[in-house]
C-alpha cells in the first residue's frame, strides 16, 4: 500500500552559502585580517571610494581588494593603479558575489601576496541593492553606500540591505546644492530599520567626511589584529 509521508527538513536555502562564508571568515581570522563587503546600487561610488581609501591608507595598512563585476575588469584595472593586490571576479550573469566566488578570490590572493601580512581585504560587490544583501561572503562588516542622487526613500524600498549594514556611507554630498534631497530624511529612514549602523556622509570628490570614514576603517582593523607575539 502506498502512503504519503512527510519528512521534516527545516534546512535554510542559504545554508550552503552560509557555511562557505563562515569558512572564508575563518581564513581571514587565521590571518588576522579584517574583511569588508562593500555594497550599493550601480554608480553610487564604490570604486571611487575604494580609490580614495587605498590612497589614504595604503602606507599604514596592508590592503587587498577582491573586485566583483559582472563582465569586465574595468574597476579592477582602476584599482590596480594603486599598486596593491586586486583580484577580479567576473560573476557572469550572476548579480552578486557569493561565498564560493570569494573563496576563489581568497585562494588567488594567497598565490600572489603574503596573506599573513594583510590587514584589510575590501570586497567590492556587484552593484545591486537586492541580491548581495542575502549572500554573505565571509565579511566582518557590511558597508552600504547610498548616493544622494538616489533619493531618500531607497532605505525603505530596499530594507534588507540597509537593515544589515554596519556602516552606511551617504555619498556624493557635494551634489546636495543641486538636488532636492533631505539628508535628515535619509538618516531617519535608515534609523527606522537600523538603529546601530554608523552613518557617515561623504564626498569622494571634495573629500568631505572621508577622514571620519578612514578612522572607522582603522578602528575596525585594530579590533581584529592579532596581538604581536615577540620572538625575543
Amino acid at each position, binding site marked *: 500500500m502506498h*502512503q504519503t509521508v512527510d519528512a521534516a527538513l*527545516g534546512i535554510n536555502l542559504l545554508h550552503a552559502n552560509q557555511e562557505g562564508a563562515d569558512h572564508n571568515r575563518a581564513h581571514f581570522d587565521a590571518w588576522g585580517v579584517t574583511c569588508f563587503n562593500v555594497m550599493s546600487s550601480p554608480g553610487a561610488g564604490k570604486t571611487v571610494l575604494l580609490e580614495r581609501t587605498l590612497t589614504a591608507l595604503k602606507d599604514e595598512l596592508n590592503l587587498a581588494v577582491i573586485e566583483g563585476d559582472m563582465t569586465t575588469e574595468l574597476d579592477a584595472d582602476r584599482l590596480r593603479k594603486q599598486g596593491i593586490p586586486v583580484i577580479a571576479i567576473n560573476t557572469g550573469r550572476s548579480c552578486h558575489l557569493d561565498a564560493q566566488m570569494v573563496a576563489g578570490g581568497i585562494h588567488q590572493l594567497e598565490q600572489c601576496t603574503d596573506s599573513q601580512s594583510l590587514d584589510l581585504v575590501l570586497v567590492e560587490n556587484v552593484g545591486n541593492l537586492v541580491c548581495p544583501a542575502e*549572500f554573505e561572503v565571509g565579511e566582518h562588516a557590511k558597508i552600504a553606500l547610498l548616493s544622494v542622487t538616489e533619493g531618500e526613500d531607497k532605505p525603505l524600498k530596499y530594507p534588507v540591505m540597509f537593515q544589515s549594514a554596519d556602516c552606511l556611507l551617504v555619498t556624493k554630498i557635494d551634489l546636495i546644492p543641486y538636488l532636492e534631497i533631505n539628508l535628515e530624511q535619509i538618516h531617519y529612514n535608515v534609523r527606522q530599520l*537600523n538603529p546601530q549602523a554608523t552613518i557617515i556622509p561623504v564626498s569622494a570628490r571634495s573629500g568631505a567626511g572621508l577622514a571620519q570614514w578612514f578612522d572607522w576603517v582603522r578602528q575596525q582593523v585594530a579590533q581584529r589584529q592579532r596581538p604581536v607575539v615577540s620572538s625575543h
Partner: protein
Amino acid sequence: MHETDMTKALIRTVADWYDAQLDKPQISKIHLVVGQFTCVEPVSLQFAYEVQTRDTFLAGVELVIRETPLIAFCHACQQEYAPAIGLRYACPDCGSPMAEIRSGRELKIDHIEYCSDSAQAYAPNC
C-alpha cells in the same frame, strides 16, 4: 535573478536528502517557507524551479511556497507589530526603530511529501 541560485540550493538540498533514502521514494510536494522580509520573490522562485527541474528527478513535483509576514517586536511597548514594508518600519505607537524581527526572514525547506511503500509511518493513502 538570485532566485536561480536559491533554486539551485533547493534542488541540491533535496537531492542530498533523496540520495540518503534507501527506497528512492516518489516525491510529490516540496514545502518552502519564504519570509516577506527577504529578497526572494515567490513567483520568480516558482518559475526558476519549474525551469530548472525539467528532465530531473524533481520534474513535475509541486513546489508549495508559504509566505510568512514581517513581524517586529517593540521593546519599549513590549508588543509585536507588523511594519508596512516599503513605507514604515518604526513602531507605529512609539516610533522606536525596528530592532527585533520575529518573523519574515525565513527562507527554508520546511518539509517534503513523498509516497512510500513502507508502512512505518501512519499517513493517508496516496
